[in-house]
């Protein structure tokens, strides 16, 4: 419970858990089916617990996960979301798209350790007054069993789970001589691209001020090309700079690792950059080492440049790419997955502690947003205040909402470059959250649809999408 709610409770003079405590449940219902179904329960004089407070929406498709969070933040002990049965939606597909959102949102809540007895989804038609009464009874019983919404826990002194180390071979090592050759190819290629006018700017890496660290550079001169570098310190996903670079030049060359190309595909699919204005330079990658050790995303990677790049640079030389061939198959045994499994094996209460402690560290510096190649909104929803979507407070109130929103906005879109986790000064394992949601999207809806022509998973739907969790 937030301080705000605490003060509200203080205001109400409520004690901790008084005898006969009744939960407060907020029900988000659609106008056409469930609201009318609840009317039906009334006209037939059914009785059910007075625990629910109804909020009427045109459609389940209008219900943002943020509204569910808002209900919890305002002190609801439980939330019930209810709408039309699949196929009966007044707007045909509103509930089907919503079902996908809710599926992923619920998975996220579960992963973060929310007691799922507090969060329910149901289909109740306009004729199902009895079902409405039953659903409210069942949901009330479940929330009553879960008890009053707890305060953010104090995790003082808690050791936390021991996550398995990320293990894997990683890309082949590149010898010093090869690395030098590769770097020379890069510099020469970049200079040629500028000189020939094939690119007005080359987005690459150069030496930074800290040992071993390379930093981004938008090279526009021959001199800057001579400073280009490549290696284990090339941490940044330069796709993030693509749009900026294209403001400076009609065409930009972009140095990309194979793992970063997906992010670019996402940007192209979402109309943010035009493929024809980019010249992709793929380099043989030795893997990156953000803090000495090889990054988890590299452990299953061969390091070969992505064949879809326009130019492929290996120690052997420069070749034209753009074959359109598929990338090497992604490693199925992702090193992060074992860590996710370890978190999932914890009881919900411990998952809650684990994530709450991480979110408590969150400074709301929005570096995760800033480095994310797929975060490009002109104004982030976190900066909007009519209404205040995300509480501005850098505490349990705001941080939890922010981290959930961020994760939801990347569900079905995140391409796993792990930049957010790399830059997070609080070491929040955003990579695990993103990866978990990617796995959930794949598990429920099949491949995440990361090609330019495909629909993103969360704007798509199928009639037969799974819905075991819906009452």
């Amino acid at each position: 419970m937030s301080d705000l709610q605490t003060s509200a409770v203080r205001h109400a003079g409520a004690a901790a858990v008084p005898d006969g405590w009744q939960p407060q449940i907020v029900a988000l219902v659609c106008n056409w089916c469930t609201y009318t179904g609840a009317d039906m329960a009334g006209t037939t004089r059914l009785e059910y617990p007075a625990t629910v407070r109804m909020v009427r929406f045109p459609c389940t498709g209008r219900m943002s996960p943020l509204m569910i969070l808002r209900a919890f933040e305002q002190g609801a002990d439980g939330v019930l979301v209810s709408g039309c049965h699949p196929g009966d939606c007044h707007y045909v597909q509103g509930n089907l798209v919503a079902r996908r959102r809710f599926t992923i949102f619920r998975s996220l809540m579960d992963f973060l350790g929310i007691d799922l007895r507090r969060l329910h989804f149901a289909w109740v038609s306009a004729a199902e007054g009895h079902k409405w009464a039953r659903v409210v009874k069942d949901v009330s019983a479940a929330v009553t069993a879960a008890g009053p919404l707890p305060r953010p826990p104090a995790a003082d002194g808690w050791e936390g789970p021991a996550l398995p180390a990320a293990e894997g071979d990683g890309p082949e090592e590149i010898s010093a001589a090869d690395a030098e050759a590769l770097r020379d190819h890069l510099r020469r290629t970049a200079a040629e691209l500028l000189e020939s006018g094939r690119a007005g700017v080359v987005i690459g890496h150069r030496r930074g001020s800290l040992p071993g660290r390379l930093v981004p550079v938008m090279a526009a001169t021959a001199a800057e090309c001579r400073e280009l570098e490549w290696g284990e310190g090339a941490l940044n996903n330069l796709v993030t700079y693509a749009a900026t670079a294209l403001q400076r030049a009609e065409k930009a060359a972009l140095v990309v690792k194979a793992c970063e190309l997906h992010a670019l595909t996402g940007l192209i699919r979402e109309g943010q950059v035009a493929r024809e204005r980019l010249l992709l330079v793929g380099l043989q990658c030795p893997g990156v080492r953000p803090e000495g050790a090889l990054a988890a995303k590299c452990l299953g990677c061969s390091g070969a440049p992505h064949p879809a790049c326009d130019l492929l640079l290996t120690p052997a030389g420069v070749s034209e790419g753009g074959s359109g061939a598929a990338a090497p198959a992604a490693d199925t045994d992702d090193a992060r997955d074992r860590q996710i499994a370890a978190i999932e094996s914890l009881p919900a209460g411990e998952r809650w502690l684990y994530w709450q402690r991480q979110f408590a560290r969150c400074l709301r510096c929005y570096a995760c947003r800033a480095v994310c190649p797929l975060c490009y909104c002109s104004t982030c929803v976190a900066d909007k205040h009519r209404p205040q979507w995300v509480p501005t407070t850098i505490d349990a109130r705001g941080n939890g909402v922010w981290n959930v929103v961020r994760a939801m906005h990347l569900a079905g879109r995140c391409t796993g470059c792990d930049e957010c986790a790399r830059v997070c000064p609080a070491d929040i394992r955003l990579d695990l959250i993103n990866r978990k949601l990617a796995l959930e999207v794949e598990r429920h809806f099949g491949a995440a649809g990361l090609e330019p022509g495909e629909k993103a998973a969360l704007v798509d739907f199928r009639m037969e999408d799974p819905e075991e969790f819906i009452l």
Partner: protein
Amino acid sequence: MAKVGVFVCHCGENIARNVKVQEVVDFAHEVPGAAVTEHYPYMCSAPGQQLVIDAIREHGLDRVVIAACSPQLHEPTFRAAAAQAGLNPHLVEIANIREHCSWVHRDPIAASAKACQTVAAAVERVKRAKPLDPIEVPVTKRALVIGGGVAGIRAALDIANSGQPVVLVERQPSLGGNMSRLSETFPTLDCSQCILTPLMVQVSRHPLIELMTYSEVEAVSGYVGNFTVRITRKPRYVKIEDCTACGDCAAACPSPVANEFDMGLSTRKAIYIPFPQAVPSTYTLDADRCLNANLQSPTGFRVLGCIRCAEVCKPRAIDFDMQPEVVERRVGAIIVATGYDLQIGQQARECGYGVYPDVMDGLEFERMLSASGPTEGEVRRPSDGKTPADVVFIQCVGSRNPKHGVPYCSRICCMYTAKHALLLRHKVPESRAFVFYMDIRAGGKGYEEFVHRAMEEERVMYIRGRVSQVYEEDGKLKVLGVDTLSGKQVEINADLVVLASAMEPTDHGMIAGTLRIAADEHGFLKEAHPKLRPVETLTAGIFLAGAAQAPKDIPDTVAQASAAAAKGMELLSHDALERDPTTASVNQTACAGCFECLQVCPYGAIERQEVRDRQGNLQRYVAWSNPAMCEGCGLCAVTCRGGFIDVAGYSDEQVFAQLGALGPLPEVLGR
């Protein structure tokens, strides 16, 4: 913070029995912004409404909350009352404390607490409400009917007879559709052409119907009341106005072709009239089959190899230089009546269709039975022209067969098979008719009796079961099947096999893509609601008629056509439409142009708009929600990650405010 009036209704005892009205009133007074709080035994009564009206006027209220029954009942009532007092109707909010409270909670304390919070939430919500005015959409007073079968004909005539102009587009050279192919119609055995032809003529003569045969709808843009339709008129190479339908050209034409109107059972010439009663009564030159077609000149017929038809045509109606013509029409309503085809699928092939000439489908048999057909109504085997003695009819070929066909029932097969068997028995009294069926579905007026007539009076043998195989042996077709009632194998030597193939929508429902309306996985066009809006589509202004929507027989088709026409007429009867203003709007300054909103919108209401700088250079594309098409579901609003789309009447601010009132209660309720 607005000045809100809160009016709590007792509903006699209905609310007051379980909800302590006075407490709700007192509580409402503590909600910030609540300036006036009143209660009344029956707020919906005339004095109750007057109370609200007077309070609005007297206190200058700018928002109103009515705590009473479900908004489904009296929201319109109180909105009207507010409007009477000069308040925008969308500044009225209903707190449902009857259906959702007093009627379902017996404990007065809990029920009152819930009522209080519901009222508080409604106040919070209405404080953020904005006045909304109905969206006005002008209506072009003309309808487009796509398809000139019986559905399209009926719909076009109904609308035109009501005084509204109609554009009727038919792809084939003549009106008539599948019905004009039929011999007689069940269960009355009227001659199909006899009842259809007068309607076709009415269409052609109707001053308000612009008939475009041999034409296709290429593209449709716009929205309800304001569609723009692009129609391609294919060249007939015969000037309709000059052609006298004398037939001299066809007689002279050296190029015979299978006649598709007779399902290939006869031939026609490259220049032809599909059937004698065709409307318009004019010849058409089949460009693909004309001998001139092969001469590869850029304009088609410029280099002429054969001009016999033109030579014999006295009115000089033939014009080899005719070009496809694209015309545009603005219409307010569209009726889709594109009809059906019979599906020849795997099961039909297993039954020997396409392998043995004496296996035919239902429509082919219809042509054979038709007095104007290739055999002039005599039943003859295609292979040798002999009159068949034993004829096997197989129902559900492809239908009700999820594995190898379609899962649905084609609905007409039971009836037309009975008709076929009966007509066979009439025409060839010594013949024997066998029908393999799964169930008999004869749910129509006089239908069951008709089937019984076939069974009992005409001694048609009905065998319940599926046919496993049809093969030829000694010039006879062997039909193997199982009689599931007796459990015995059945083997029938047939002279002719007639398949009741599945109906499928014409071109697998391709028209859905052109019109941007929904179709199911089989291509049948989707109605807005299966029960309550069966002839509307989700795209306002587009209506459905006939077998394009689902398999159906002639009476149902005609009934639906008239229903669709009525819907269209209703729409065209307005000079302008008033649409609910609870629609989505995009903050275009902030829109990043990812267009995921466009992908989720069920109504195609989101459009791409260009943003240009002062010099006119294209900067980017942003989304725009067309208020004339948006239904206000809000899918786009939640899809937009930046929150740049909001829904009037269900705005983010309103929802958040409402949720903010549902937290733990202040001490007022801490009793």
